[in-house]
């Protein structure tokens, strides 16, 4: 339960977020301001926002729960599952997205392939984000109920109101700037818990010795790389093929909620730098979300549900004041993820669906209003659908399950689209639809096809492979766009063509 000082900290935080959002409203005059901050954001704010968006309250609860059950292998998601992908995004994809002046990633797919690909990708993300909102709301409500005894629906509606006010008011600028504040609060609050936890268990050596003494069940708790035949969801083969090669790239390159703020950078260099700076910050996230799970093994051994570990640790370790700060950090994690999803989904709806199919060439002011209405509608939908996630046994795994359905296929068409000029519009469409179909089939028959507990990493990999092969085969059977049509959409294609024509003219000059 929170004390008086804790309530003060939480209320100050929430009021501060609302006021910041309302203040930033004065900078929003157009759809470009609402969705892309007028392309004025510096790299440091974007990088911090990426991390805050990526790490939510679910990670505090879900990752610490996974660490409680399986050990540090879950940290792969923030280390190898982020850094290589963010570097690939920074140097290959983001600069081209930024130079193209895009609002959405499906917009790139539309220019590179055709409007069918754009629409399928956009609708897929919209549906995913809409249900993801519900999962996040439910996760927060479960935690708030455990900590404070608040009724589930009170927590959900309170969070929705605060996030709704500042997101609808200030658009992406409010989202990013509140993310900056929220990331700092998350780091400080999370670090306080980890510091006190380590103090309680006798430091790193105390923690590792005590867990090692708990028997064979905890033998692999300090191994990042687990055997291929492990019973956990994190075999090294799945981490390498499913996470590193597919899911991480799809998430950091194809996820609108992540990449949209890079599109709002004030320069191409800022767009690139934001991803690399974000990768650096993200490497510290496991310390905040993973170590509490390990510490809880020592302090609260034998929990039936690992997801309870984080909440119990807060109650055990934190004094008044710090409890409020960590509670604010948890709310910050939740809000920073929800606000990004709201703004990104509104962008997808407004630019890829509404502007494309419902009302073309309306005024910029009109699209701004549509974006704001879409934000409110999504928020209400997320609140209403939040109980759906209670049907899934693990909150975090539920999200990964959703993601793995289409991450692989989307990344396959993005990769081939950016690096292979021969990829055609029909190849991209077939690869995307075929890959998602393969994902669905793999999930339907997962009991007979896979041996590990939850095969979402393998499903990602194989659906990526399916999307890649289908795109390649269909592309080779269909007519590609002229190369000039692909300038600015395929990595360094224009530069290479210029180099070739330069060589040709020089060679011709010598011959004459």
């Amino acid at each position, binding site marked *: 339960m929170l004390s008086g000082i804790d309530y003060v900290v939480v209320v100050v935080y929430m009021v501060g977020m609302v006021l910041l959002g309302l203040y930033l409203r004065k900078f929003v005059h157009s759809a470009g301001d609402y969705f892309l901050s007028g392309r004025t954001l510096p790299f440091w704010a974007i990088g911090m926002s990426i991390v805050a968006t990526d790490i939510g309250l679910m990670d505090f609860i879900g990752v610490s729960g996974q660490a409680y059950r399986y050990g540090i292998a879950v940290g792969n998601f923030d280390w190898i599952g982020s850094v290589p992908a963010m570097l690939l995004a920074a140097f290959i994809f983001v600069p081209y997205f930024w130079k193209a002046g895009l609002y959405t990633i499906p917009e790139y797919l539309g220019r590179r392939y055709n409007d069918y690909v754009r629409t399928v990708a956009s609708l897929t993300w919209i549906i995913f984000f809409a249900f993801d909102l519900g999962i996040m709301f439910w996760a927060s409500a479960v935690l708030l109920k455990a900590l404070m005894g608040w009724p589930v629906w009170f927590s959900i509606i309170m969070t929705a109101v605060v996030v709704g006010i500042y997101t609808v008011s200030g658009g992406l600028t409010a989202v990013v700037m509140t993310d900056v504040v929220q990331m700092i609060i998350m780091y400080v609050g999370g670090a306080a818990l980890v510091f006190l936890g380590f103090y309680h268990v006798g430091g790193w050596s105390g923690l590792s010795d005590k867990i090692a003494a708990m028997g064979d069940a905890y033998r692999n708790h300090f191994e990042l790389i687990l055997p291929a035949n492990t019973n956990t969801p994190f075999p*090294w083969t799945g981490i390498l093929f499913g996470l590193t090669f597919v899911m991480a790239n799809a998430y950091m390159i194809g996820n609108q909620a992540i990449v949209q703020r890079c599109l709002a950078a004030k320069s191409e260099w800022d767009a690139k730098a934001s991803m690399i700076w974000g990768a650096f910050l993200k490497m510290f996230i496991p310390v905040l979300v993973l170590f509490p799970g390990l510490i809880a093994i020592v302090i609260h051994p034998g929990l039936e549900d690992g997801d309870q570990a984080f909440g119990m640790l807060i109650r055990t370790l934190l004094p008044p004041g710090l409890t409020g700060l960590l509670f604010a950090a948890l709310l910050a994690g939740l809000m920073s993820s929800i606000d990004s999803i709201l703004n990104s989904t509104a962008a997808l709806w407004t630019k890829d669906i509404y502007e494309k199919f419902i009302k073309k060439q309306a005024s910029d002011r009109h699209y701004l209003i549509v974006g704001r209405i879409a934000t409110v509608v999504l928020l209400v939908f997320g609140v209403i659908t939040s109980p759906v996630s209670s049907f899934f046994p693990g909150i975090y795994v539920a999200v990964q399950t959703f993601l793995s359905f289409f991450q692989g296929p989307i990344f396959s068409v993005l990769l081939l689209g950016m690096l292979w000029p021969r990829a055609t519009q029909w190849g991209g469409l077939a690869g995307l639809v075929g890959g998602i179909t393969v994902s669905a089939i793999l999930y339907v028959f997962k009991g007979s096809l896979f041996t590990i507990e939850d095969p979402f990493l*393998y499903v990602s990999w*194989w659906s990526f492979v399916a999307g890649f092969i289908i795109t390649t085969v269909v592309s080779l059977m269909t007519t590609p766009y002229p190369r000039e049509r692909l300038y600015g959409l395929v990595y360094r294609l224009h530069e290479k063509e210029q180099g070739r024509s330069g060589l040709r003219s020089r060679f011709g000059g010598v011959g004459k």
Partner: protein
Amino acid sequence: MLNFDWLTGIPMGVAKGVFLALFAVIGLLVLMIPSDYIYEGLENPRWWHNLKLWAIADLVFIFITYYIF
């Protein structure tokens, strides 16, 4: 095959080596990026604007983490 059963015989030390080699290869690829591409969008580039250095720092950090654990 879908479970990568054919890789279960690989020793964990080799598996770890695969991860470390991946970071090293990414580092080499980063170093091969043309410098003018790195600085695009800047009017007065300074040495600390060199994003290759930032990326290598990220990679060194993660390499050490995987080397230890």
